[in-house]
């Protein structure tokens, strides 16, 4: 584990050369648009793209695992407590400590970061999907059974569609918290929006910290908004209220 202040695998000078920079950069003012313009395609844009990829991969894997576990425990309640206990323990480990635990096993790699990020999505996603499956009113299930739907048909046609709102609520929290958490990935790998923040911290270079931080916040807001739109599209029955 590399201690803070000595960034891992920092290739070449990323910190702007203050000697050749603009007055704004040299004086390290709060926000220098010219620096952003000069470093967008070289530093900020790649960091943003990496950040999106780290987040998507983590949430996708976390969703698949949570979905499987939720389907299993929906039928076999016996396994619910062990699954929740596991997810809750993972959730309570501080990210720095988790990296520390993982680096000897998986090294300074994307895998280390993803294992940690996936781990933090499990509790929220699993609990929300399961809660969604269980939120189906008993009279709806009885009607389904009484009309001759099989268990599988009830799951796919009734329970899963009705679990969408709770699942989407879980996804929103998971995505936003993963975007925030993925900045810490820079401790392990030179990727994501955390990396420029990390480098700029050493020189206290305000513009870079500010812009990379703002991109992370903006990304979280945009992702959340997209998920809200997706949820509305997926649950047309929830948009309508009684007319009379």
């Amino acid at each position: 584990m590399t201690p803070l202040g000595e960034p891992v695998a920092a290739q070449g000078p990323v910190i702007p050369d203050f000697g050749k920079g603009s007055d704004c950069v040299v004086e390290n003012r709060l926000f220098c648009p010219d620096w952003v313009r000069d470093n967008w395609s070289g530093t900020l844009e790649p960091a943003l793209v990496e950040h999106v990829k780290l987040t998507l991969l983590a949430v996708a894997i976390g969703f698949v695992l949570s979905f499987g576990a939720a389907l299993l425990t929906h039928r076999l309640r016996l396994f619910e407590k062990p699954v929740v206990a596991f997810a809750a323990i993972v959730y309570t480990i501080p990210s720095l400590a988790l990296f520390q635990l993982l680096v000897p096993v998986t090294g300074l790699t994307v895998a280390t970061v993803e294992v940690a990020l996936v781990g933090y999505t499990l509790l929220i996603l699993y609990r929300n999907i399961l809660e969604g499956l269980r939120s189906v009113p008993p009279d709806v299930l009885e009607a389904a059974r009484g009309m001759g739907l099989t268990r599988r048909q009830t799951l796919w046609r009734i329970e899963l569609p009705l679990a969408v709102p709770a699942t989407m609520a879980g996804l929103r929290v998971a995505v936003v918290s993963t975007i925030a958490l993925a900045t810490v990935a820079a401790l392990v790998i030179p990727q994501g929006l955390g990396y420029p923040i990390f480098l700029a911290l050493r020189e206290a270079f305000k513009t870079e910290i500010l812009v990379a931080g703002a991109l992370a916040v903006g990304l979280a807001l945009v992702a959340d908004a997209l998920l809200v739109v997706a949820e509305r599209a997926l649950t047309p029955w929830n948009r309508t209220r009684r007319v009379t």
Partner: protein
Amino acid sequence: MSGVAAEIAFDRATKRYPGRAEPAVRELTLTIPAGAICCLVGPSGAGKTTAMKMVNRLIDISEGDITIGGTSVRSLDVTQLRRGIGYVIQQVGLFPHMSVAENVATVPRLLGWPKARIAARVDELLDLVELPAIDYRDRYPAQLSGGERQRVGLARALAADPPVMLMDEPFGALDPITRARLQHELLRIQHELRKTIVFVTHDIDEAILLGDRIAILREGGVLAQYDTPDALLAHPADEFVERFLGSDRGLKLLALRRLDELDLAPLDGADGPTADGSTTLRDALSQMITAGARSLVVLDGTGTPQGVVTLESLTGVAA
């Protein structure tokens, strides 16, 4: 088993739950003629819902058997059996994420009907339950009133034209006005479709109104009496049935019959208050009381006097 109504026969059907000494339903034997409504009534704990749910095997039969059109329900695949039986429950259980049309189309879709046939059937059924298809087919259940929901529930149960319908207190959660309206619509629909219906209710008045036959169950799932409403009211088998029918069972009996069903006394130039032949005996009695008269002149549809009904002829109907 589709289309034509089928006879339902309970043959010593018994339901025992493990760990309980007394059965929930004990050796229930009764035959519901094809095309009749049979109301199962009784206090809570009398096993009326249990008895009904044994028909579509939502509850397994412990001993004995139930046959539909001569075929044992135990011999059929359970999902096939259920798809051939309409099922309506008190809370309706509409699928909230599906439109009215999709809800009604549930069983036809399970049975793999072609799309055009399903769409035509949905429109036909919505018209039958008096929810104009053009206004209602694309609504979601959250956009319907309680009465409208139960109409959709009824349409959904009728969708694949099952010969048999099970209805578990379908109107129990509705306000009295909506309930009365839906009861009469069920009778209108039944007049047209002639299904064999098992109708569970705890409301004896509802059972008298709707049932061609009434089965009164007592605690412990024992059949107390199975008869037509008229015979039940006139000749209750025991004290339990008598109490269950209520102290006004004489009036209930009068309410079942109309003046034009009676043998009237000759006119002989009689004078006094008049009543139409379609008046129930109960209303005729009420009219005598309010008019302070011991007889009424009965008129036919055109207002022509047909004869006289006397107080004595009313008090003698149960004999």
